[in-house]
């Protein structure tokens, strides 16, 4: 486009190294994949890659929502329990509707919609606390974390919600395509399969991945191309400047926290669809992984920087690592050590490689 570096130009070389350094995450991911594929068994397979994608969904969605918040210089600690909160609401709604005689076709979308709507409420409250009452994000969202958990437990009566309509699991664990040599079918296993054929059938592109991908693509577009995204970065860079330029910062921040909440709610609903049960504590262990993913992906906790692509790579790094360790039968507590180390490494590397300078 505008920069052309020839290697005799020292600045160009520095720019190239800077580019590589700033994009270390994706290189790390590739190295990871290669390493595990070589040392593990069955790692480099369609089945395994799909496993990784599915396993990373919760963290990925939480992390993408978190990216918006972190870019504005805030943080959302409540997402861990919004997952459970909306999952429980979704499950309870579906169960109640089905028990009242409604069909699956009706109760599932209704359950999802209700959960999404309620899932926005914590985000709204977070946004109001942070933007209007100027409560520090850390505190406000930690308060909400507790409240969401408490409410989720109340709704679920402290036990996981069961007896969901079976179609839920079908969607949650299904694939877009099913492939058998000679047969290809959409959304469901091909009919009339002999037992041996059933074993060989391969699912391609899990449904939950499609849903997550869809959401992520939409919001990547929003963050990178629209005025809303631009203002998000501006607020993170210099909130006062944004205010004086006429941006309605309070309203914008409320929307940001609602986006984070929305993604957490989506993660909760997908959880329900995968495991066919609603748990109040779903996702609580994943929250700090989500923040780690955002930071590994290049965002700064001070705000103003970060991309969704980076976050996605960060989430994949963690997920690949986790599955890789399982694959190599290494105890998973090493995962915590590894993620902690990568996180610190991420910050150190970002410090060494400053911004790219344009010359023209």
């Amino acid at each position, binding site marked *: 486009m505008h920069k052309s570096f020839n290697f005799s130009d020292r600045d160009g070389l520095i720019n190239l190294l800077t580019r590589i350094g700033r994009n270390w995450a994706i290189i790390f991911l590739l190295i990871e994949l290669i390493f595990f594929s070589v040392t593990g068994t069955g790692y480099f397979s369609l089945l395994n890659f799909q496993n990784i994608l599915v396993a990373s969904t919760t963290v990925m969605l939480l992390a993408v929502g978190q990216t918006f918040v972190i870019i504005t210089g805030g943080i959302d600690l409540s997402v861990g329990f919004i997952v459970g909160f909306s999952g429980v609401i979704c499950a309870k709604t579906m169960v109640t509707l089905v028990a009242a005689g409604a069909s699956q076709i009706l109760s599932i979308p209704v359950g999802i919609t209700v959960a999404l709507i309620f899932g926005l409420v914590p985000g709204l409250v977070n946004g109001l606390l942070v933007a209007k009452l100027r409560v520090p994000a850390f*505190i406000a969202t930690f308060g909400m974390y507790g409240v969401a958990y408490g409410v989720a437990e109340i709704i679920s009566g402290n036990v996981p919600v069961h007896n969901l309509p079976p179609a839920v699991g079908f969607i949650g664990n299904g694939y877009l395509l099913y492939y058998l040599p000679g047969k290809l079918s959409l959304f469901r296993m091909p009919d009339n399969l002999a037992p041996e054929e059933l074993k060989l059938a391969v699912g391609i592109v899990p449904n939950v991945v499609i849903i997550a991908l869809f959401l992520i693509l939409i919001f990547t577009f929003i963050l990178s191309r629209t005025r809303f995204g631009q203002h998000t970065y501006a607020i993170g860079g210099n909130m006062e400047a944004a205010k004086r330029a006429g941006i309605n910062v309070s309203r914008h921040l409320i929307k940001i926290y609602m986006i984070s909440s929305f993604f957490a709610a989506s993660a909760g609903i997908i959880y329900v669809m995968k495991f066919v049960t609603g748990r109040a504590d779903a996702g609580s262990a994943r929250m700090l992984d989500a923040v780690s993913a955002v930071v590994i992906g290049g965002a700064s906790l001070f705000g103003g920087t970060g991309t969704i692509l980076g976050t996605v790579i960060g989430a994949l790094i963690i997920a690949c690592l986790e599955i890789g360790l399982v694959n190599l039968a290494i*105890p998973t507590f090493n995962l915590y*050590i590894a993620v902690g180390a990568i996180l610190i490494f991420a910050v150190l590397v970002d410090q060494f490689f400053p911004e790219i300078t344009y010359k023209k």
Partner: protein
Amino acid sequence: MVPSRQRRHLFQCLDTICIFPDLSAMKNKINFQRLVLKNWVLIFLLLLICFFSILEPAFFSIRNVNNILIASTAVLLLAAGETFVIISGGIDLSVGFIMGFSAVSSATVMQFLFAKGAGYPEPVCIIAGCLAGLLLGLIPGLVNGILVARFRVPPFIATLGMYGIANGVAMKICGGFPVSFLPPLTGKIGNGYLAYYSSKSGLSLFQKPVLTDRADILALVRLVPVSVIIVAVLLIIFGLILSKTRFGQHTYAIGGNVDAAIRSGIDVPRHLIRTYVISSFLASCAGVLLVLRFTMGNHTQFGATYELFAIASVVIGGASLMGGKGTIYGTVVGVLLLGSLEIGFVMIGVEVFYRYIAVGCILIFAVLVDQVFPDLVHNE
């Protein structure tokens, strides 16, 4: 002079609250309000105690006070360490897992020495284990401090990373299972009391009187748990360090304005390292105390969120996450508030998860009070 933003905010709120035309009455009302608000946590705690005692008279008993204190010991130590870090303008997310790490380390040492077939007497095992736990527990703090001070990693990230690493290492050491088979004396120390009183045998120090009659055993009054004494001593020591020494003063200075601190000659990096080591040390004290109480060493579970309750207590106790404010005393009241809440809820039969909601609300209220009345100085 154009007032600072905080001052303006304060005046705006005073404007809305004080409607008395009489100037002196207004001043008195302001003073009273300030007094109330400055100590709102303590007042809230007392109200809470009354509330719970009315609903469940057993709440207001020596045994229950002991329970609350004992249950709060771990968080008290974690929060005390966190106080130093937060005042300096940082944060330490790893304290919960450092506690588990040191618990596991000290228990492993004790078990190792004890199990070597009557080779070492119990007290030696125990002391060795405690020392091991305390010394090893300094390492995460050192690493945290170096990352924050020398490598300028944001504290949130550095301690988040350590959170994972400490937990992972702890689990590695114990293989995921609690470390047991420790010398029995361990539990006696951890669960002992300063004094026991019974109508039969009178007052006895440290030794639990031998009673055979079941009624006598039930009527035994236990005074002041040993674990609480240990914690109290630590809290007093570190509280004095924070409020009376130059080290404490510098901690506030760094939290208030790090540039000013640097320029006045304070060795900020070294100070910060020490701050995180203190936090780590107190967390490892908490871990060793756990081993003494439960006669086993366990890594910290994921759902325990000790660090968040520690941080919440510190903030409720008057500190600001921006740094420069806070006291050990305030933190202690904050911890006791949360502890009473938890035990109180259990005693009156309210589901424990309601306490999350309560804690969330109290936390937000604490911050709002701090914003509206920023002049309430919380660093004496």
